[in-house]
């Protein structure tokens, strides 16, 4: 049975940092709601490269590689094997920057979440980053996947959902991940000019996932013709190519847009060749559709509160959503103020990401684990950032994370972390226990931890205790 401060810190946040439980105790709800006024809601290390910087880096890398190849060919003549080995020598210094960027950017987010005083906001960011999941596969996506949450989600995190949706769907990471950057109308100008040489056409991947995952939900009442209509509405939504001096970021290619008016969910959207307006109008309406309000309210309640969220709670959130044009901050305040959100039993099993972040918060010193180890940890526990592998993102269901094999991996990870900490001098398990749980720990867990045969083992047991595994 948990106290309200314990609930505030764990169910809504990423677990207690040292002394945070005491700080929260006075007014847990206010502590949470105040975080939603934080500006900016989350802050990154902005000295790391943006998606535009990354495109420039990747372009430079490819160019260098080409030059290296040419030099190698000239040096080695027609001997192919020699060419390959020369190429190796010449390109040695030009490393593909993608993996390093992925690690830097995604571990920065985790690092910030561990140290943050506003971990509710980080939970919310991670929720929407997973809602709009993009995967790091292939050199371009590997490098830019983590920029979506930094550039499109974070700035709109506490605003209206329609702005968030639009910003995400016009970000290069989403456009490339779901293949919209080259989705063009069959009757577009490009095809007419192409003289039949190089026909292009529609790719409905992004449109389908917008309807199924990002807005209405799979049972939201759309049909195949709606998918096609939306796909046509967003034809030409593309990404600028650095090598062709097109600048960087979102680029609307008017000559790739399918001409005509299209009917989405019974409403007709006028043609707009000159700008991206047609698709934008479609997205704004989708964002404010009652099915979207319900789909995302349900997902939020499922994520924060319980895998069987009460209908009354969802209804409150939907009502607020529709009254505020999908204002995420307002919907979250409704969630926090609802009595249904404060049941005393912890019903959610932490995901690996939640588990790792809350573990490191409880210890209060994340220098013990460097950022590379952080990424390795999440990979070993099955939730490496940007590797969900499908646009549905990682599962939010406990059953997908608490299998026998997964529990064994968590034990191993906890033991490895515990052995890394230099207990003898710096870490006091009793203090960490009090920081993490206050009085919210069963006698059995408390005694088992205290009676462990070493400090390392005690720390492992603390992290693996039923109270720490759930929120």
């Amino acid at each position, binding site marked *: 049975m948990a106290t309200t401060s314990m609930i505030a810190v764990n169910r809504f946040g990423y677990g207690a940092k040292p002394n945070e439980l005491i700080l929260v105790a006075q007014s847990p709800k206010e502590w949470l709601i105040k975080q939603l006024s934080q500006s900016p809601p989350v802050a990154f290390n902005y000295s790391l490269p943006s998606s535009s910087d990354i495109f420039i880096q990747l372009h430079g890398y490819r160019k260098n590689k080409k030059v290296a190849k040419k030099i190698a060919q000239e040096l080695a003549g027609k001997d192919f094997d020699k060419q390959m080995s020369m190429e190796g020598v010449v390109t040695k210094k030009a490393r593909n920057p993608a993996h390093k960027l992925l690690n830097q950017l995604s571990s920065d987010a985790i690092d910030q979440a561990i140290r943050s005083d506003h971990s509710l906001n980080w939970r919310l960011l991670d929720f929407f980053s997973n809602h709009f999941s993009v995967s790091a596969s292939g050199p371009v996506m590997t490098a830019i996947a983590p920029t979506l949450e930094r550039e499109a989600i974070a700035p709109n995190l506490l605003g209206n959902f329609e702005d968030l949706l639009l910003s995400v769907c016009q970000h290069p990471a989403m456009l490339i991940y779901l293949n919209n950057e080259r989705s063009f109308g069959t009757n577009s100008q490009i095809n007419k000019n192409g003289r039949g040489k190089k026909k292009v056409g529609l790719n409905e991947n992004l449109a389908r996932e917008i309807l199924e995952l990002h807005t209405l939900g799979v049972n939201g009442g759309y049909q195949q013709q709606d998918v096609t209509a939306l796909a046509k509405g967003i034809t030409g939504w593309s990404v600028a190519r650095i090598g062709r001096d097109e600048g960087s970021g979102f680029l609307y290619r008017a000559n790739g847009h399918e001409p005509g008016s299209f009917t989405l969910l019974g409403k007709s959207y006028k043609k707009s060749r000159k700008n991206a307006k047609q698709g934008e109008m479609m997205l704004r309406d989708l964002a404010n559709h009652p099915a979207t309000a319900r789909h995302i309210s349900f997902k939020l309640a499922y994520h924060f509160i319980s895998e069987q969220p009460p209908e009354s709670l969802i209804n409150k959130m939907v009502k607020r959503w529709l009254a505020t044009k999908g204002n995420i901050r307002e919907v979250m305040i409704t969630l926090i103020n609802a009595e249904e959100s404060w049941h005393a039993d912890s019903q959610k099993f932490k995901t690996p990401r939640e588990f790792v972040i809350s573990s490191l918060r409880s210890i209060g010193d994340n220098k013990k684990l460097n950022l590379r180890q952080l990424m390795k940890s999440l990979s070993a526990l099955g939730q490496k950032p940007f590797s969900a592998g499908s646009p549905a993102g990682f599962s939010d269901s406990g059953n997908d994370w608490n299998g026998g094999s997964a529990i064994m991996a968590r034990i191993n990870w906890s*033991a490895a972390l515990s052995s890394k900490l230099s207990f003898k001098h710096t870490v006091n398990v009793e203090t960490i226990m009090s920081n993490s749980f206050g009085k919210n720990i069963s006698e059995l867990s408390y005694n088992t931890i205290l009676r462990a045969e070493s400090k390392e083992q005690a720390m492992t047991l603390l992290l693996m205790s039923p109270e720490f595994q759930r929120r």
Partner: protein
Amino acid sequence: MQRRQFIKSMAATLVLFKTPNAVAKALSATSPKSGNKKIIWVVLRGAMDSLHTLVPTFDTELSVLRPKLLASIKDDLLMLDNGFALHPSLSNLHQWYKKGELLPITAVSSGYAKRSHFDGQDYLESGLTNIDHDTGWLGRAVNMKEKQALAIANSTPISLRSSEASTWYPSQLKEADEDVYQALMKMYQNDELLINRLEDGLAVKEMADTMVGDRALNIKKKGQFIELSKSCANLMMGNNGVDCAMLELGGWDTHNNQATRLSRQLKALDQGLKALKDGLKDQWQDTVVVVATEFGRTVKENGTGGTDHGTASAMFIAGGSVNGGKVLGNWPGLKNNQLFEQRDLMPTSNTFSWLATVVSQQWSLSDNQLKAVFPHVDKRTVKLFVG
């Protein structure tokens, strides 16, 4: 003995004695066996394109609908019968076919009518008309016949839920000291979920230590399908092995650049299945492998060298005793009026009816038992196994 009790007693044993051989003995002494008939269920996540895998070369519409995609494989296709052919990457499956150990089935669908991967996969795994995330068709069959099942995954996939299936996945982490497990067992005594999962994890760990070992496992390759298949075969071998296993392979959602991506994917599948057969040795004779995906893809190639979400796809049944060497299922045709909603391959048979036939023939399920596994489909009359 019920699976749960069995696992519990085994976990207790191993915490006390901690010798792998004792565990192996415990397994062989208590495991309920009947003829050692094994089932391996392989789910391809992302909707595999059947027209690029089990290719109907005889259908003249194919080159019209998919000029680029067909051209990329046309010259190297591996011919089967009646004008069907396998993708060039499926060389092992092709040999199985020639030996009569493979049954490709064309134009199948689970009956799932929308085109969502995630919903479609849940539907395929649950095997009910309304998706139930807590019970899967294979889990129900496993329960019915008191089989031991194992998912090669971190947590139990829907297919095996409702049974006491274990999970195993190669660990990238150094193992904790044994005494931690004992302390955890004590701490979890009032927590049913955690103690069950811990016992399960321990039991499978011991089994894997004895039967898989770390010898063949290259750390970097651990998660690859071929490595998982090798381990899967090891965990099924002999009298100590499990009766039923589930493997998953993602990466089939080929909206763009399909020719290259499917060459790679199908090669991974082909080599993984070969590794399964090689690892199973004589056991292959008693094993059936079923490979299926949530739905198929559009018959027409899209604007980016790929295909979008469709309806019917193909599935494979393989094994040492499979009455193979022919293509099953009816070909619906690719003319516009023969397609589903004028865009997808039309289903001509139901995936579950084939799955029902496989389980009922392999594990001798009575009609009543089968009804509990698949309440809404009937098995087919075709004899899937020789002898």
